[in-house]
């Protein structure tokens, strides 16, 4: 059983992305970061409803996993899921529109920030119920297998979600039916205000995958390259009919659980320490050190991203509200 558990270490010498991949990773991660920052402004200005859960600091997981996916592959995400949606190709304009409750949003403004869906992009649903998206992703895996498609289905969820019954039941189903599913647990060390170490005895959540005899792998979730490599293997296994893989991506949520979180449960020092290791800074250093991209190239892309996000935001702000009659549509 233990042989199913692995810790992945990136071999710097063996790692061979071409430049375009570096650019793509850099672009995706920055898009997420800038989008999230803008969203926070929107929230703080009181332009949106509900709560906003930022994924700042976790961009490498979304990027590294989704860079392995095709448009018709499925992902199931959470309330903290705009990052994964962007990595899967979501249009910032439609995303902003959605969080602003506009007609032009992915869900016509009826879903909101917690419920991003894009049928076209294989974004099944963003779930507000912890753990609930995991069996849904497994169901997509069942479709793929039954309909003999070449897709994969990825479930993104947090460390805290591994304590839900839905997690347990879903992993077992994927295991016994050998479904093309990749379980991506973003262990950001907290579920809301509760440190994961208070909620489980496990040192590694990957241990939990073993209970279903699912190959389980621990990876540095702040290194987009490592996440990419691990996800690549998992996606290949899935596509070739070898069944599910469980990935524990160790990362950190740099901001509070939601905007407005008092963050009394952790020290500034802890946050600062992780800020040093945060994925964008980390990847920038890698690019520079390995001479793949220089300062100027990196900055230029960042600037482009900022501009694109700004434009998307402005357009979304100018978009129309849904008609009142929308209330009665899409119920059945």
């Amino acid at each position, binding site marked *: 059983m233990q042989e199913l558990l692995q810790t992945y270490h990136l071999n710097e010498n063996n790692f061979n992305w071409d430049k375009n991949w570096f650019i793509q990773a850099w672009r995706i991660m920055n898009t997420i970061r800038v989008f999230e920052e803008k969203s926070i402004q929107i929230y703080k200005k009181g332009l949106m409803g509900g709560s906003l859960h930022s994924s700042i600091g976790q961009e490498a997981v979304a990027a590294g996993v989704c860079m392995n996916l095709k448009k018709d592959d499925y992902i199931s995400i959470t309330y903290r899921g705009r990052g994964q949606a962007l990595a899967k190709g979501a249009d910032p304009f439609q995303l902003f529109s959605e969080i602003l409750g506009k007609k032009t949003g992915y869900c016509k403004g009826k879903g909101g920030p917690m419920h991003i869906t894009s049928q076209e992009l294989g974004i099944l*649903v963003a779930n507000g119920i912890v753990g609930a998206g995991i069996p849904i992703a497994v169901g997509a895996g069942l479709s793929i297998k039954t309909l003999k498609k070449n897709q994969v289905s990825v479930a993104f969820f947090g460390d805290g979600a591994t304590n839900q019954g839905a997690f347990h039941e879903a992993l077992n189903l994927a295991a016994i039916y050998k479904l093309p599913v990749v379980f991506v647990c973003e262990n950001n060390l907290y579920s809301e205000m509760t440190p994961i170490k208070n909620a489980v005895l496990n040192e590694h959540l990957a241990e939990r995958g073993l209970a279903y005899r699912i190959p389980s792998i621990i990876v540095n979730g702040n290194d987009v390259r490592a996440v990419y490599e691990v996800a690549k293997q998992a996606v290949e296994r899935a596509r070739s009919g070898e069944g599910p893989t469980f990935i524990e991506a160790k990362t950190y949520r740099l901001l509070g659980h939601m905007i407005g979180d008092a963050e009394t449960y952790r020290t500034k020092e802890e946050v600062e320490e992780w800020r040093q290791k945060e994925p964008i800074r980390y990847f920038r250093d890698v690019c520079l050190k390995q001479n793949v991209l220089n300062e100027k190239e990196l900055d230029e892309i960042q600037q482009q991203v900022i501009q694109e996000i700004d434009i998307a935001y402005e357009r979304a702000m100018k978009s129309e509200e849904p008609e009142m009659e929308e209330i009665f549509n899409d119920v059945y």
Partner: protein
Amino acid sequence: MMSTNRIISYAQAINEALKEEMALDDRVILLGEDIGSYGGVFKVTKGLFDEFGKERVIDTPISETGFIGAGVGAAMTGLKPVIEIMWIDFSLVAMDQIINQAAKMAYMSGGQTSVPMVIRTQGGGGRGNGAQHSQSLETLFAHIPGLKVVAPSTPYDAKGLLKSSIREGSPVIFIEHKMLYSQKGEVPEEEYTIPLGKADIKRSGKDVTIVTLSRMVQFSLEAAKELEKEGIDAEVIDLRTLVPLDIETVKESVKKTNRVVVVHEATRSYGWGAEIAARIQEEAFDDLDAPVQRVGAEDVPVPYNLNLEKEMLPQTKDIIQGVKKSLYLQMETV
């Protein structure tokens, strides 16, 4: 109903509906506990595993949240799952997937996704199965926008309604009754479907309208027979589906009878009978010559002892009493 002399059981009728829809549409798959080669504990899926194979008739571990959730995901991505929850009481372990997920998916996505899924289950008491295996929980589902709720009373209805349910584009809770599985009735050879949202007048009458569904249709018909002896002519309306609700048929009837008794096996308080009563008095106040009476189970869990259970659940005599009450007849005469 088409003319026919073929008599089959409620369980067989459901089995046929599954078989026909599976033959018609490759995307229809079955999921559930012991539904495979064993054919289900109530034998409803008998033979389907042999006919359609293990890819389409899938035995699951005991994990209702897991496999209802998987059904939701499968339905969103091209399959049409028909899932058996062995007893309706067990739906409670999967309520999040039913209410927060299946029911809301289409809406939350602004209509991008849909969940064409049927949850087949069986409810009701009468067998001494005790508090955790005898509930009538249809009201819980009927209250949730996004779910359709069906509860057939005869083999004919069961088949026609299940076929329609499978063709629906949204989640349907299809509630069978454990005491009806072995009941027989006419079911034609020819294909037919029954639309959701159309009540069926199982008996016409002019003095009082009994509104009911599932097993209570039988009890109501028995009550009507008894009442006939006393010169009371009861109309028995089988709603067949709670959502959509065919209130029009009920209102038509009330225009004629001016008196209504709603009968359900669910516990009385906050049960669906209240909705029917509320709707009738809202929309047909002036047609009512007496308050709408409700006959339901007592507001207690279902006791095990068979006599107690019978006393707790509505019986024919309670329906008769409800009718008399609505006719302002002496209770003592019952």
